């Protein structure tokens, strides 16, 4: 316990220090930017390096007591390997004195030197999400906290390299730890991956993403949508003659081009300025900063091209990327290679052909050489000629394979896997934005990701906030708040009972500007979108049986009433309802209404029909609803001037008053229905708003029934099952143990045992057991004898009838014999075993009886 406490304290201390250090560095970096002076820069840098000296000794924070033996000692093979490695390093430094010492066998957490290749523990993770390199790298970068190297430049190498298991346990590490863990996982899932030790740019080494565009903001590259040039067909009509002056046109075009060029120039200048601002300040230690990353070679797992993975950010880079400035050595779980190529041009000219000993000096001979491009013979010759280093070790190396990893299997618990980041929370600063991640269920409202976008690089003014949610009961997926327009947009997953898909609003008050989109295919009415302004409402529909696609309502000013003024009792008066319909192909175009406008205020109904093919005008009809009385006092039912019609092709029956009258009656009905529907829509909006507010207040989270740790019901069920199983087990054990029961039953129940009774009980029990043992032995004995007798009989019979026997009989006899012999042998074995075990069993029972709680007080004297 004390050890643990200490450890925690140490850890906390380390964290605090690391934070302080980070803050200091940040402040320094800010200063750096604000001053922008070359001379001061170097000064600053020096100060910076001074600050970084205070990095705590990492190994102190690791509890080594619980680690297995392989972590603390070296096997003979490993010792030999270390020897080989030393020899290798020695020769290397002799041959290339101007190069840096190799990173070969750092100390592990138990201060034991271990060869780097054996620290890689290829493991295939049980999570399908970790099967591919991108998700795997994402996990590693999320799961671990980055600790900078003790010294960013080359002089002091990191002396420690921890096992991946420890790194996973403490969730932090430097670039070597990151690469080591990632490499183990990648090799485990079948990639041809290598750890790379080399040099990289400052941004990469310090995991500085402030100049990166956030991956969530990166726009998908637009597919080059080049319009296919339309080849004029033979009979395509020629365009009408252009009667404008050619000269004037040319002049005009010239002017326009000039203006465009100027604008372009301006734009470019501005762009350049922005780019200038974006560029990092020059780094005095450029090219010297040590970094470790992962190289994935093409070939395995259908990787088409080799690439680098930066383990801090999980980004992949091409092998020619300018961020990577040089490679010293690479290794995987089988071998170690030194880069013999010149890195004056970064990694741009490197060729990753590990079978080529001129470019890549290998340490162990005989392990498989991936990516062999040269002919075998040549290869061998060259190997023989040039491997001066190799020759010395050759005899012992010839069959020397890399020993198995000393690291235990990498294990990530489901809980860790789910929470991903340390404490389930992670913040990344990108260019002009901040990304925060949480583990699911960590936040009560289901928030998992938040992206804050700022106006510019100084990150002061927030422009937009995007929040992603998970496992919400109301299926809210994402919420976007635009701080400049104050618009909130909520996105929902399918499954909500209101079928809401998107909701954009300023306030939740009804009858204000808002737009709601729906999953129209799950709605009975096929509503796709509804937008509202204070005095209008527009609805868009899709796939309806009545072909309605659009409905627009204009509202007037609400009449003042002295009674209750709630929206329910005093609806806004509708001024105009416009409805549009799709073409219904089963009707004639002249009978198929395209647009229907009910002008409520004017008592007018306007119809516009669909346009026929080959025509450019559409039929129209306008009804005036007048309930007038003619001069004789009779009610006017229908007069020709109540219906104004334009028909593309005049038809006979539509001129009839009866037809028009019936149509008008129909439309009046439709108007009532439409009004009712509008009213229902208004109610629905109110209901949605109410529901949304309630949901937002409660923000319940759903738990899958398969999630047995979170789902209360499943948890209870699982625990009940476990308890049941345990009880069952206990009962069985008890039932087995009660050897005294048959004898206790014979005694009168409820009475206390006398000592004499107890003694008798014990003797009886022992005798009974003895008898049983003897009986068993006798049983085996009789069986044995019976079997032997039978065999003898059979043998006798065989000898008598041997001459007259058929081949078949003989065969069956032989098989019988072999089977009988087998049975006899088994019986014999059993008997011997029984004889051996019986006394032991007897003694065991006797001892048990002495210790039996029911008898112990009576038998104590004899013990």
């Amino acid at each position, binding site marked *: 316990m004390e050890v643990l406490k200490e450890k925690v304290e140490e850890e906390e201390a380390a964290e605090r220090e690391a934070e302080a250090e980070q803050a200091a560095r940040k402040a320094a970096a800010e200063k750096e930017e604000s001053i922008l002076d070359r001379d001061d820069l170097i000064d600053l840098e020096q100060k910076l390096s001074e600050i970084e000296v205070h990095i705590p000794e990492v190994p102190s924070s690791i509890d080594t007591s619980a680690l297995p033996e392989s972590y603390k000692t070296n096997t003979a093979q490993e010792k030999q390997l270390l020897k080989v490695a030393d020899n290798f390093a020695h020769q290397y430094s002799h041959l290339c004195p101007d190069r840096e010492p190799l990173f070969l066998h750092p100390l592990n957490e138990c201060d034991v030197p271990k060869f780097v290749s054996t620290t890689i523990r290829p493991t295939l993770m049980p999570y399908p999400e970790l099967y591919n390199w991108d998700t795997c790298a994402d996990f590693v970068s999320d799961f671990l906290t980055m600790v900078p190297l003790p010294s960013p430049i080359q002089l002091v190498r990191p002396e420690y390299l921890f096992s991946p298991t420890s790194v996973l346990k403490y969730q932090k590490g430097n670039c070597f730890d990151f690469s080591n863990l990632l490499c183990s996982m990648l090799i485990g899932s079948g990639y041809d991956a290598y750890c790379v030790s080399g040099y990289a740019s400052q941004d990469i080494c310090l995991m500085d993403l402030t100049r990166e565009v956030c991956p969530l903001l990166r726009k998908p590259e637009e597919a080059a949508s080049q319009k296919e040039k339309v080849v004029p067909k033979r*009979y*395509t009509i020629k365009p*009408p003659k252009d009667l404008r002056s050619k000269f004037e046109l040319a002049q005009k075009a010239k002017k326009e081009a000039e203006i465009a060029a100027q604008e372009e120039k301006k734009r470019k200048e501005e762009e350049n300025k922005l780019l200038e601002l974006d560029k990092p300040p020059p780094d005095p230690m450029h090219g010297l900063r040590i970094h470790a990353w992962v190289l994935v070679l093409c070939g395995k797992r259908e990787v088409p091209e080799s690439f680098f993975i930066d383990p801090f950010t999980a980004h992949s880079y091409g092998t020619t990327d300018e961020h990577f400035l040089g490679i010293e050595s690479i290794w995987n779980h089988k071998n170690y290679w030194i880069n013999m190529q010149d890195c004056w041009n970064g990694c741009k000219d490197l060729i990753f052909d590990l079978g080529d000993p001129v470019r890549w000096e290998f340490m162990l001979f005989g392990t498989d050489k991936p990516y062999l491009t040269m002919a075998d013979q040549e290869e061998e010759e060259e190997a023989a000629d040039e491997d001066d280093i190799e020759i010395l070790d050759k005899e012992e190396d010839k069959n020397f394979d890399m020993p198995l990893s000393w690291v235990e299997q990498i294990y990530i618990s489901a809980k860790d896997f789910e929470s991903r980041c340390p404490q389930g929370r992670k913040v990344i600063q990108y260019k002009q934005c901040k990304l925060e991640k949480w583990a699911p269920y960590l936040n009560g409202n289901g928030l998992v990701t938040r992206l804050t976008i700022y106006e510019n690089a100084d990150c002061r003014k927030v422009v937009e906030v995007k929040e992603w949610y998970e496992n919400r009961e109301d299926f809210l997926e994402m919420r976007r708040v635009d701080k400049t327009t104050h618009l909130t947009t909520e996105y929902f997953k399918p499954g909500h009972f209101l079928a809401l898909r998107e909701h954009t609003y300023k306030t939740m008050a009804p009858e204000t500007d808002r737009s709601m989109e729906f999953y129209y295919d799950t709605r009975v009415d096929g509503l796709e979108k509804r937008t509202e302004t204070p005095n209008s409402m527009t609805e868009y529909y899709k796939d309806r049986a009545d072909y309605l696609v659009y409905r627009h309502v204009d509202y007037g000013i609400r009449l003042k009433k002295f009674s209750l003024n709630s929206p329910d009792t005093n609806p806004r008066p509708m001024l105009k309802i416009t409805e549009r319909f799709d073409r219904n192909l089963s009707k004639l175009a002249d009978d198929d209404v395209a647009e229907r406008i009910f002008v409520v205020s004017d008592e007018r109904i306007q119809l516009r029909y669909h*346009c026929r093919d080959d025509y*450019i*005008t559409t039929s129209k009809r306008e009804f005036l609803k007048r309930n007038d009385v003619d001069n004789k006092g009779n009610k006017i039912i229908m007069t020709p001037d109540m219906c104004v019609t334009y028909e*593309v092709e005049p038809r006979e029956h539509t001129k009839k008053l*009866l037809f028009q*009258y019936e149509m008008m009656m129909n439309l009046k009905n439709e108007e009532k229905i439409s009004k009712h529907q509008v009213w229902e829509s208004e109610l629905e909006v109110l209901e949605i708003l109410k529901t949304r507010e309630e949901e937002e207040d409660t923000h319940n989270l759903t738990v899958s029934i398969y999630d047995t740790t979170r789902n209360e019901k499943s948890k209870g069920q699982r625990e009940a099952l476990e308890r049941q199983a345990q009880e069952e087990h206990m009962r069985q054990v008890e039932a087995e143990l009660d050897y005294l029961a048959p004898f206790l039953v014979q005694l009168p129940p409820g009475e206390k045992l006398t000592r004499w009774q107890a003694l008798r009980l014990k003797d009886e029990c022992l005798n009974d057991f003895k008898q049983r043992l003897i009986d068993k032995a006798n049983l085996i004995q009789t069986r044995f004898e019976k079997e032997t007798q039978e065999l003898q009989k059979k043998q006798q019979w065989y000898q008598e009838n041997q001459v007259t026997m058929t081949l078949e009989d003989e065969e069956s006899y032989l098989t019988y014999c072999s089977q009988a012999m087998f049975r006899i042998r088994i019986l014999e074995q059993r008997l011997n075993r029984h004889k051996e075990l019986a006394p032991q069993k007897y003694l065991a029972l006797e001892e048990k009886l002495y210790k039996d709680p029911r008898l112990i007080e009576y038998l104590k004297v004899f013990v």
Partner: protein
Amino acid sequence: MIRLYDTIEPNVIDEELLKLAVEEQGPQEEAGQVAKQEGINFKDVRSLQLDFQNILRIDNLWQFENLRKLQLDNNIIERIDGLDSLVNLVWLDLSFNNIETIEGLDNLINLEDLSLFSNRISKMDAMDTLVKLQVFSIGNNMIDNLLNVIYLRRFPELRSLNLAGNPVCENEDYKLFVTAYLGDLVYLDFRLIDAHTREAGFAKYQYSIYELKHRENQMQYKLEEEKANIAELEKHKAAYVEYLNGSYLFDNLYSDDTEAAKLAYLPGVPELLETYKTKFVSICQNIFDYGLIQQEKRTAEVDLFYECLGEALSDNRDLGLKTINEFEKKHVKMLHDIRNANELQVVDAKMSECAEEISHLFDILMTYEMQLVEQLEESINNFERNIIDMVGTFVENVQGLMAQCRDLENHHHEKLLEISINTLEKIVKSEFDEDLPDDVRALFSDKDTVVNAVGASHDIHLLKIDNREDELITNVSNWCSGIVDKVHTDEHNRNRKRVKEINQYIDHLQNELDNLDFGDLLD
């Protein structure tokens, strides 16, 4: 319900009766007043009920073109007649009449519900065209042959059948038989057919139904094959090279030629004929193949033309639609302004402005149309030239190939003549020792006869070849002029239609404006 003529005076369907019926059954209340005011046109009537009228003969119904439902039940009709013009009829009720045979229903192809209940019909027949029939009621009749039910198999939509009250129903297997043979039937005698009956019926008549189905399938198959053949021939005919693949033309040359048959007995002639035939047939095949290729080219050309035409038209239409749309937006606003204006001067100014806009719209639309006409004219002329050229080349090439045929024929003729003369000489010299039929030998009486015979055969052949060639050329030329004419007339009609439409629209707008004026003055 069989009444006798002498007891009751038969009624005639006349104008008065119809008017009364229409008015009674027409719209009621307010709509009825409106209807009365302007009178109902028989054409607009959808349903008509003429029951219990003692009608003897169906007549005078030809005006009811759009009639959907006609009820003539409980009359004394003896013949189904006078229904030919009611093609839209869906529902026809002729129950409780004195009809003896089913007839006169051939034109009622839309009929779905037919009732002939309680008549004197003894056979279901003459309804082949009623493919949409769903409900058929023929109960209380005199149908006595169960096999007559099989006739109803041809109505794929038939779901309800009423046969109750016929002599046939006394047959104990009646139900099973009907359900088995009419598998899609759902209701029999207005009762739902249960699965049990269906199964039993199927089990009982399984084999005969299989046989029937097999026969029907075979018929279907044959029909399809024939259709395919006809389609193939049509394709060849469209290329004007029908019957040129194979030896059809060659055989045709010799079909009416008696002399050639006689001459074929001469030694060496069969071989000669054989080679002639192969060469001839191969040339025919050439013509055939060439014709098909040319046909394809022509179709492609025509398709291309129509595609371009369609594009041009739709572009023009879009342009027109857009213009009108823009105009209408403006126009509506203007009308609104005029309505709301209260000063007479303003109204006048606006009115004239509006009128100007309308005439401007007219100008624009007409300009578009004129432009299109010009563009299309050029395009059409181009097409005409090309298609005529194409046909010209085709004809020329075919003529060349036909000339080859003729050459072959000439060559053959010469050879044949030579052999004939040789034979004649031999016969004259009595050196000819082969057996010849008497009529053949008669040919070789003197030189003139022989030469005439061979010449006649040759002439026939040449004539046939010429005829085939002429036929081909005439057909293709006809097609060519036909399509060119069609394109021109189509374009002309289209132009007229569009101009008419524009004028109509402008007139409407003008009228609307004038009426508005009128209304405002009244106010």
